[in-house]
């Protein structure tokens, strides 16, 4: 018996409606507000590109994006490098097995340990009265006399690293596991040096994964807010901090620009997550 050609509405879809309704109300609608209002004149409600253009005209906003990008770039590259070396050492450094297991557990905790308590942990360690600074003073060296402060850019970078490198370890570990020992043995049998093995075998295989994870770490730092707010009390003008102050007291003087600022973050985050996803798929070919 022929079914009607018209696609029949399936009542089964009703079963997923609560989910769609909930996410529409509390995620999609509020998020789309940001997109729509970015292109609206906040006085008249008419379509405009002025808000977006205003982002590029204001030195204050460009400065905020620049600091956010800079700290994300530095801590993602640093976190990726150190995280990789750490993971490789634990997995392929002929270490006892408990090292690998505890490293992964620690990293699971550390990558989730962020925000206010993390800020305080570094205050206890590296503030002028902190533990490590105290130890250094015993040896006659006070970093605070040599330009170091915890509460500015480099101090904050150091704190961000605490949740960056553990995330790298967690994500890169399966890729390192995927490097077969046979490949190294095979290249050794063919007379390749260790440098040649890395340059022509291991590195090209790991490259998409390394790049993808670095991009993910970039997004991870770029969206961070609580840690910086708690550590510096909002003294560092990251984009997230500016959005926070805009929400408290309209510091930009124009609501439309505030929306555009938030939209800019979403666009950069979306690019980062998309880049990560694409590169991660390329890696999976080798990880069977």
């Amino acid at each position, binding site marked *: 018996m022929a079914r009607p050609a018209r696609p029949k509405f*399936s009542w089964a*879809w009703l*079963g*997923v409606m609560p989910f769609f309704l909930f996410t529409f*109300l*509390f*995620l*999609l*609608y*509020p*998020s789309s507000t*940001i997109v729509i209002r970015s292109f609206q004149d906040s006085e008249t409600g008419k379509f405009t590109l002025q808000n977006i253009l205003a982002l590029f005209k204001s030195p204050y906003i460009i400065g905020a994006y620049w600091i956010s990008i800079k700290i994300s770039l530095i801590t993602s590259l640093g976190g990726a490098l*150190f995280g990789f070396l*750490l993971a490789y*050492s*634990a997995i392929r*450094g*002929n270490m006892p097995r408990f090292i690998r*297991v505890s490293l*992964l*557990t620690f*990293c*699971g*905790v550390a*990558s*989730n*340990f*962020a*925000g*206010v*308590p993390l*800020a*305080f*942990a570094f205050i*206890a*360690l590296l503030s002028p009265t902190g*533990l490590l600074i105290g130890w250094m003073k015993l040896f006659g060296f006070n970093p605070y006399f040599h330009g170091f402060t915890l509460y500015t850019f480099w101090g904050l970078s150091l704190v961000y*690293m*605490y949740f960056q490198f553990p*995330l790298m370890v*967690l994500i890169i570990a399966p890729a390192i596991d995927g490097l077969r020992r046979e490949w190294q043995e095979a290249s050794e049998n063919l007379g390749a040096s260790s440098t040649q093995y890395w340059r022509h075998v291991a590195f090209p295989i790991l490259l998409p994964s390394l790049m993808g994870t670095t991009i993910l770490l970039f*997004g*991870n730092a770029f*969206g961070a*807010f*609580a840690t910086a*707010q*708690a550590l510096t*009390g909002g003294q560092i003008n990251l984009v*997230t901090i500016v*959005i*926070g102050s*805009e*929400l408290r007291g309209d510091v930009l003087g124009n609501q439309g620009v*505030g929306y555009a600022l938030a939209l800019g*973050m*979403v666009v950069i*985050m*979306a690019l980062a*997550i998309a880049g990560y996803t694409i590169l991660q798929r390329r890696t999976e070919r080798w990880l069977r």
Partner: protein
Amino acid sequence: MKSRGKVWAWFFIILGVLYFFLPLLATFIFSLKAKLGVLSFQSYINVFNDPKFIRSFTASLLWASLTIIVGIVLFVPTAFWVRLKVPKARTAVEFITLIPFVVPAIVYVFGLVRTYSHPPLLIVNSPLLLVSAYTILAMPYLYRAVDIGLRSIDVRTLTEAAQSLGAGWFTILFRIILPNIRVAILNGAFLAFAIVMGEYILAQYLAKPAFAPYMAVLIQNRAYEPAALAVLSFALTWACMGIITLVGRGSGQAQVGGGH
């Protein structure tokens, strides 16, 4: 050659251990110094005697429990239904569950406040909005945990078997499916718990009592009590992750983006 590699391996591991433990050690030592000249647990006593601590901590416990309940009630039936009846919805649903990764928490709360602080949508002061927002924040982890759980059981056969014995949908969901994926749900629930207990941004900007905003205020005003709180907070994260590792054998999930 080999031994030189091993020296480097130990070097990086020791560096990692130092990076990981020194801040915690410093915090712990600092938390013991509340009494001049002696080490004591005075700061912990002060914290536990502060009614504001009790209030903010129990508030966070409440938010976390409600988030987990709303999340399970919403995501388990959805994931189940998508698997069983509407596989076409899969792409859309999965896409939506990943959006919180793309919208940082501060941008998200910005959107929430701006959307829901004008009549007729004036619900910004409702605790329900905070719980809903936390459910969204935990969604990428919770939904995925549930979905992974469902993947490991034969949903269709279980459902048909239950149906042939006369079970209704409610019975199937809560007496057949739920117990079968309890490990996966437990995994997601503890991760959601850890996220909500440490969450600062939403509670702060939706102006609700919670643990992290309380701690942020304390950092500005007090010296030793925040250290005690940081130690407690770390112990809490550690306990949650420990339980996840125990029940789920360490499918190490990490938080990305928002919560930091």
